[in-house]
C-alpha cells in the first residue's frame, strides 16, 4: 500500500441551472488568447445532446481511454506503443477543429468606423483561423444549448444508442439536464499514458494532471487518448493544453475559478486518500459495471486510524489528513454514495464525480400526481425507465440499479426533510428505507442543500516547506516504516525494478537514486541523511 492524496471534485447536477458562469470565468482566466479560442477547459453541455466536441462519448469513433486485451490486461484503446509511434505522422483518431467548432470574432471596428448611411453598420463574423469572413456560422460553443435543434440532432447523442426510437422522440418534452465538464484528473489517466514524449504527468502531492509545455513536442496523442476530450491542441503554439484544476489557486487553499464563481453552488472540492498500488487492478476489473465499486475500493477511509498512520508515514502532512476527514468529495462519493464517476467504463478512474439529477424525474412525476415523497417516488423511479437508463449510460456503465439506488437516497432526503420541516414529524422510516441513518440523511442535506462555502471547499494549502523532505524520499519504495514489510533494503537500483512497471514515480528510471543500507538504516545516495 502506498497512500497518496488527490484533489477531487463533485458536481451536484440537481442544482446546475446551465448559466455557463463557470465556463466564462474559466475562459477569462485560462484560454482567452490566440490558439486557445476554441478551448473550453470547462464547458456545460445540455443532455441529451451532442456534446463538445461532437459525440465525444463515442469511443468506437474516437478510441479514447482504456480497454482490456484478450488476456484481461489494460491497454490503450487506440492501440499499443509501437502502433502509436508508427502512426505518429498522422494521428488516425484526432478530432478536427470543426468537431469542436471554428472559432470566430466580429468586425467590431466596422460599427464605429462605418461612414454615415441609411442603414445601421453590421459587424460581420470573421474566422479566427483564416481571418476570412464567415457568411454562415454552422456550429459553435453550446450550439445545442437547452436542446436547441434537438429534433434533428438528438438521435446523434451516443447515450441514446440502444434506447428505443419512440422514447427518443419524447426526450425533448420530458427530459433535459446540464452536464458541466472539466478535466477528470483521473487516477489512471490515459492522456498521460498516450503521451510519447513523457510531457504529461500526474502530480504526486495532489493528483493534478498537467502538460509540461517545455517537454511537449506536439505529437497529439493525448488529445485522442483522453476519452473525455479534455486535452486540447493549441494550433498557434503547437502544444497540448488542458484544465489545470487552477493549481495556483488550489495550492493557496482556494477553490478553482469554476467552483468559486458557480452561482448554483453545485461544486465541491476536497481530498481523497487512495492507494496508488491498487489503481491498476481497479481499472482492470473484467466487468465494466464493477468499475464503480473497484474505484471506491481504491479510496481509503480517513477515519480509519491505520490509514491515517500509513498516510503520515507516506509523507502526507497532518493538516492534509485532517482535511481528508472533512472532505465533501469523499463524503458524497463514499459515505453517502450519491456521487458517481462520469463514464467509468472508460477505465481511467475519473476524479470528478456527479450527483445525478433527481429534479427532472420528480418534476415530470409531480405533473402526473406524484409528490417527492419516497413512498410514492420509489415505485415511480422504477417506472421511469427512460431517464434512469440514460443516466446509467452516463454515470454507471449502463447499470440502472446504481442510478436507482442514488435517486432513492436523494428522494429519501427530500421526503425526510419535508416531513421534518413542513409537518414537524420526525420519521426514521424514510431514511432507513433508503438504507441510511437519520444523521447521515441530515448531514447530507446540509452538504447538498445548505452547501456552505467552507463545507463545499475543504482545500489544504500546499506545503512548500516540505520540498526538501519529499526529495529525501526519492527512490524509496515507502514500505519500510515501523511495522511495515520493509523490503526496500535490497541494493537494487529502482530504475531496473520499476522500468517494467505500469507506473513510474518522479523523473524517470535513470534519474532515481540508488537505495543503500547503512548501519541497518536506509540511505539515499546523494542526500544528507
Amino acid at each position, binding site marked *: 500500500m502506498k497512500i497518496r492524496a488527490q484533489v477531487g471534485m463533485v458536481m451536484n447536477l440537481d442544482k446546475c441551472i446551465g448559466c455557463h458562469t463557470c465556463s466564462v470565468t474559466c475562459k477569462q482566466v485560462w484560454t482567452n488568447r490566440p490558439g486557445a479560442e476554441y478551448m473550453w477547459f470547462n464547458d456545460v453541455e445540455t443532455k441529451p445532446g451532442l456534446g463538445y466536441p461532437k459525440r465525444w462519448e463515442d469511443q468506437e469513433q474516437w478510441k479514447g481511454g482504456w480497454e482490456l486485451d484478450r488476456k484481461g490486461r489494460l491497454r*490503450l484503446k487506440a492501440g499499443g*506503443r509501437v502502433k*502509436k*509511434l508508427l*502512426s*505518429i*505522422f*498522422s*494521428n*488516425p483518431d*484526432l*478530432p*478536427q*477543429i470543426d468537431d469542436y467548432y471554428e472559432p470566430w470574432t466580429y468586425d467590431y471596428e466596422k460599427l464605429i468606423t462605418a461612414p454615415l448611411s441609411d442603414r445601421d453598420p453590421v459587424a460581420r463574423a470573421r474566422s479566427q*483561423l*483564416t481571418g476570412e469572413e464567415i457568411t454562415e456560422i454552422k456550429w459553435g460553443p453550446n450550439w445545442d444549448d437547452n436542446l436547441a435543434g434537438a429534433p434533428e440532432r438528438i438521435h446523434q447523442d451516443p447515450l441514446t444508442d440502444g434506447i428505443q426510437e419512440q422514447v427518443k422522440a419524447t426526450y425533448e418534452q420530458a427530459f433535459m439536464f446540464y452536464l458541466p465538464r472539466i478535466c477528470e484528473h483521473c487516477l*489512471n489517466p490515459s492522456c*498521460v*499514458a498516450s503521451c*510519447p*514524449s*513523457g510531457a504529461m*504527468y*500526474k*502530480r*504526486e*502531492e*495532489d493528483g493534478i494532471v498537467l502538460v509540461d*509545455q*517545455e*517537454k*511537449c*513536442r*506536439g*505529437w*497529439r496523442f493525448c*488529445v485522442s487518448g483522453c476519452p473525455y476530450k479534455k486535452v486540447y491542441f493549441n*494550433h*498557434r*503554439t*503547437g*502544444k497540448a493544453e488542458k484544465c489545470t484544476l487552477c493549481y495556483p489557486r488550489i*495550492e493557496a487553499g482556494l477553490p478553482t475559478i469554476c467552483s468559486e464563481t458557480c452561482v448554483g453552488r453545485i461544486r465541491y472540492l476536497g481530498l481523497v486518500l487512495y492507494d496508488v498500488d491498487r489503481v491498476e487492478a481497479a481499472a482492470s476489473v473484467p466487468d465494466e459495471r464493477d468499475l464503480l465499486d473497484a474505484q471506491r475500493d481504491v479510496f481509503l477511509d480517513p477515519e480509519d486510524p491505520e490509514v491515517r498512520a500509513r498516510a503520515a508515514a507516506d509523507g502526507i502532512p497532518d493538516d492534509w489528513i485532517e482535511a481528508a476527514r472533512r472532505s465533501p468529495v469523499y463524503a458524497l462519493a463514499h459515505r453517502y454514495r450519491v456521487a458517481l464517476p462520469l463514464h467509468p467504463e472508460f477505465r481511467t478512474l475519473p476524479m470528478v464525480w456527479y450527483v445525478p439529477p433527481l429534479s427532472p424525474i420528480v418534476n415530470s412525476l409531480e405533473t402526473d400526481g406524484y409528490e417527492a415523497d419516497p413512498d410514492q417516488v420509489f415505485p415511480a423511479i422504477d417506472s421511469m425507465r427512460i431517464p434512469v437508463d440514460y443516466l446509467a449510460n452516463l454515470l454507471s456503465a449502463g447499470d440502472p440499479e446504481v442510478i436507482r439506488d442514488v435517486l432513492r437516497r436523494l428522494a429519501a432526503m427530500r421526503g425526510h426533510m419535508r416531513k421534518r420541516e413542513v409537518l414537524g414529524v420526525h420519521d426514521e422510516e424514510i431514511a432507513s428505507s433508503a438504507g441510511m441513518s437519520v444523521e447521515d440523511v441530515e448531514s447530507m442535506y446540509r452538504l447538498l442543500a445548505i452547501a456552505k462555502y467552507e463545507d463545499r471547499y475543504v482545500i489544504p494549502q*500546499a506545503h512548500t516547506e*516540505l*520540498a*526538501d523532505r*519529499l*526529495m529525501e524520499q*526519492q527512490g524509496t519504495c515507502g514500505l519500510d516504516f515501523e511495522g511495515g514489510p520493509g523490503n526496500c533494503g535490497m541494493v537494487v537500483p529502482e530504475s531496473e525494478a520499476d*522500468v*517494467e512497471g*505500469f*507506473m*513510474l*514515480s*518522479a*523523473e*524517470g528510471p535513470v*534519474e532515481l537514486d540508488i537505495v543503500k543500507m547503512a548501519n541497518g538504516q536506509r540511505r539515499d545516495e546523494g542526500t544528507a541523511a
Partner: protein
Amino acid sequence: MSAGDVLLWVILPYVAITTFFVGHWWRYRNDQFAWTSRSTQLLDRRVLGWASPAFHYGALAAIGGHVIGLCIPESLTASVGISENFYRWFAGVAGGIAGAVTLVGFCGLLFRRTTSPRVRRTTSRVDILTYFLLTVLIVMGCWMTFGHTLFTSDPYNYRSSIADWWRSIFYLNPDVEAATGAPLVYQLHAIVAWSFWALFPFSRLVHAWSIPLQYVGRPYILYRRRYGSRRGLI
C-alpha cells in the same frame, strides 16, 4: 583551386556544420517552448492522412540511403564482394522508391499547405524557406537517382567522387577536386544541402530529434513531484 571553390567546398561546409551544432545547442537551451512538430492536423485533416506518412517514411528511407552512400567508402563494399554494378542497381532501385514516395508525399503536403486557408495562415517565413530548400533537394535527388543512376546508359558513380569529398570534410582535409569533378546537379545538391543543414536548427525540423522512441519501454503513468529536485533535473 579558385577562391570560389574554396568558398563552396571548404568554407560553406564548415560554416554549415558549425551553425548546425551551435544552433541546436542554443535552440535547445533557450527555446524549448517552440520545440515542436507544429502539427496542423487539427486544422485540416484532408490529404494529410496519406501525404504526411508518405513524406516522412520516404524521407527516413532516403536519409538511410544517404548514410550508406556517403559514409561507407566504395573500397569497403568492394572488399566484401559487392560489385559496383550491383551497388548501383541496389541504390538506384531502393533510392528510387524512397525518392518517389517522398516526392509524392511532399507534393501532397505542399498542395495542402497552399490550398487550405487555415494551414496557409500558419506558415511562417522560416517554413517557406524550409519548403523551398526541401523542394530543391528532393527534386534534384530524384533527378540524380532516376536520371544519373537508373535510366541511363552511363551511370555516374558518385561514390568515387562527391562521397569522397564529403567524408574528407570530416577528416579535416577537404578534397576539393573530388567535388568539382562531379556533374552540376550533384554539386548543386550538395551546396543546397549545406544551406539546409545550416537552417535546420532554426526551423520546425528540430522535431526530428524528438522522435519519442523511449515511449516503447516506458511505464504508462508518470508522476512528478511538485517541487523540482535540487539537482534541477525537472
